[in-house]
């Protein structure tokens, strides 16, 4: 107990002596802590997004070898956009039923919700199906893709959509179906044709008021003019037909793959495809970034720890005479060792705690400045980790040189001119 007091007195009365050590540990712990907080928070946030959005499944008309052969100027097909082939609306209920059945079956086979950390209980909400009708026409003499959509459903499925300018048609609380003569325009098309929010465009004789310009998403959407689907069906004389159906699975780890297989098997004339949705990609990307940063930080900390070892060894050698004195007045080697261990335990503990707090601060700043937008969550195990790391660095740094120095004979400690 007395030895502990001796150690603490040394720290309290000469605090500047260990400034370098404390600083190094604080920085290291703060870096790791903030990185952990931001990444786990961001991941949890993304996972929550995934849990809300799930995967997206799209249903297109089948393009057979044969139909690909008779592609005319009217049936141009890209991987995303199919022209000249349609799904009749009357089979949509059948598609929905088939989908629901497959999801439910897959869900039960998996044993219900596959829990992901940080995500609470989830009820499966009914899926939202968004139909599209693609048509080609010209606008002021130039070809343009006109896409009929149900704005409310479309916005729900393509939750990553955002407006560069203009406003969504909303009633009090939510996006509503756009008015008969309201349109939205893809970012690239808007630029290319010089059409902005508020302008009026005339398509096949029908005037549409452009309500907003979509931000670019690097997809075919950037090149399209969006009008209400009923207007498009009338314009292209395709009443009762759609070109594409998208559905957002409303559960995390939804068995979307099962639904895809089921749809392709049971319903003729369509192709169902499933992609990991945008949030999933984001999740992967963020994990990659996190691992990279973690590697960088770990390497930096490794170098820092090595220099801590040097600093501590140096300052301990400066105390060689003190060690000699303590042993001469009756301290055993073990007691001297304990002085240094207690001292560095306290140092590591304090540095770890301070580093933890600084790390939380850094996480808040990082989150704000890098616009990560995660809801920050601080797990209590991070505190234990910070303390453990601080104590480990500090104690390890002193242990090896202390072991060596306390072994030196008393007479030697006074003979040599140790640096001070």
């Amino acid at each position, binding site marked *: 107990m*007395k030895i502990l007091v001796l150690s603490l007195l040394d720290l309290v*009365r000469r605090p500047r002596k260990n400034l370098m050590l404390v600083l190094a540990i604080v920085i290291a712990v703060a870096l790791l802590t903030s990185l952990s907080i931001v990444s786990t928070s961001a991941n949890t946030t993304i996972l929550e997004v995934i849990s809300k959005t799930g995967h997206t499944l799209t249903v297109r008309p089948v393009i057979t070898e044969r139909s690909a052969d008779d592609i005319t100027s009217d049936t141009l097909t890209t991987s995303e956009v199919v022209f000249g082939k349609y799904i009749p609306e009357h089979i949509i209920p059948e598609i929905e039923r088939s989908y629901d059945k497959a999801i439910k079956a897959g869900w039960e086979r998996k044993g219900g919700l596959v829990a992901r950390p940080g995500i609470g209980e989830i009820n499966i909400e009914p899926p939202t199906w968004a139909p599209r009708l693609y048509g080609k026409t010209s606008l002021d003499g130039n070809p343009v893709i006109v896409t009929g959509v149900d704005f409310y459903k479309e916005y729900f499925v393509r939750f990553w959509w955002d407006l560069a300018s203009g406003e969504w048609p909303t009633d009090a609380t939510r996006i509503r179906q756009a008015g008969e003569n309201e349109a939205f325009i893809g970012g690239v098309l808007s630029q290319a044709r010089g059409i902005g929010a508020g302008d009026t465009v005339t398509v096949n004789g029908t005037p549409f008021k452009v309500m907003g310009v979509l931000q670019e998403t690097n997809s075919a959407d950037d090149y399209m003019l969006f009008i209400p689907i009923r207007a498009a069906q009338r314009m292209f004389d395709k009443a009762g037909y759609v070109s594409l159906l998208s559905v957002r699975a409303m559960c995390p780890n939804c068995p979307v793959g099962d639904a895809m297989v089921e749809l392709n098997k049971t319903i003729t004339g369509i192709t169902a495809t499933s992609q990991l949705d945008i949030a999933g990609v984001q999740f992967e990307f963020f994990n990659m970034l996190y691992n990279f940063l973690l590697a960088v930080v770990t390497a930096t900390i490794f170098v820092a720890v090595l220099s801590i070892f040097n600093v501590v060894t140096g300052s301990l050698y400066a105390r060689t005479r003190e060690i000699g004195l303590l042993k001469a*007045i*009756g301290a055993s080697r073990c*007691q001297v060792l304990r002085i240094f261990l207690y001292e560095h335990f306290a140092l590591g503990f304090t540095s770890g705690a301070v580093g933890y707090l600084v790390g939380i601060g850094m996480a808040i700043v990082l989150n704000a400045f890098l616009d990560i937008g995660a809801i920050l969550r601080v797990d209590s195990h991070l505190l234990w980790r910070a303390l453990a790391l601080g104590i480990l660095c500090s104690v390890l740094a002193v242990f090896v040189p202390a072991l060596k120095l306390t072994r030196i004979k008393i*007479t030697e400690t006074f003979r040599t001119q140790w640096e001070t």
Partner: protein
Amino acid sequence: MQATMEKPLLELRDVAKVFRLASGEVTAIENISLAMNAGELVALVGPSGSGKTTLLNIIGSLDRPTHGDVCLQGERIDTLSEERLVRFRREKFSYIFQDARPLRMLNVLENTLLPFNFFKPADRNGKLKEEGIEIIRSLGLGHRLYHMPNQLSGGEIQRVAIARALITRPLVILADEPTANLDRENRLFVIQTFRNLTREKGLTIVFSTHDLEMAGIADRVLHLQDGTLVKVEDGDCCPCPSN
């Protein structure tokens, strides 16, 4: 100072210390035999490198001789295990070093009581602090009890070292050039204090010095040269030529 009937407190018989270095062997001291009685003040003098520090270390069990025996109260101490030696040093010896340097984080009183952070003498209950204050007062440092070492003069620092050496009530105090960095007034204070302690408390004190005036205050002066004892004289009659 003639042969006393009682057994000597400390006895060295034919002691030698040889350092084995990569570059060869260095004989620091050899053929040293001497005896010291309780209450004696002994000075070690000799040119630099003559072996004063080495001899003090061996007397004080900080180092082991490579040849010969060292006995304290009739018990050999040069063959004790390191563990026993730690206990031995706690109970029987105190050391004062040239570069005394009390611990920087402790004040005068705490530095004086420092040894009791590591062991408690069995036969002394409580009152340690009062005793420490008493010792510090007796050394003229009563007004500096709670000062930190960096607020003290060299002479005051050396008095702290003496106080710390006394608090454990040792049999023997070993002081290697305790006056080297002090002015004459403080040198005299230290050695006079030693002298009083040996006279009044029956302590045995051995100190080394380059200052013959200080050595002259001792009961006995041991002259070392090239590691051997070349002359032993009675300090009290130093000014007079001896036969």
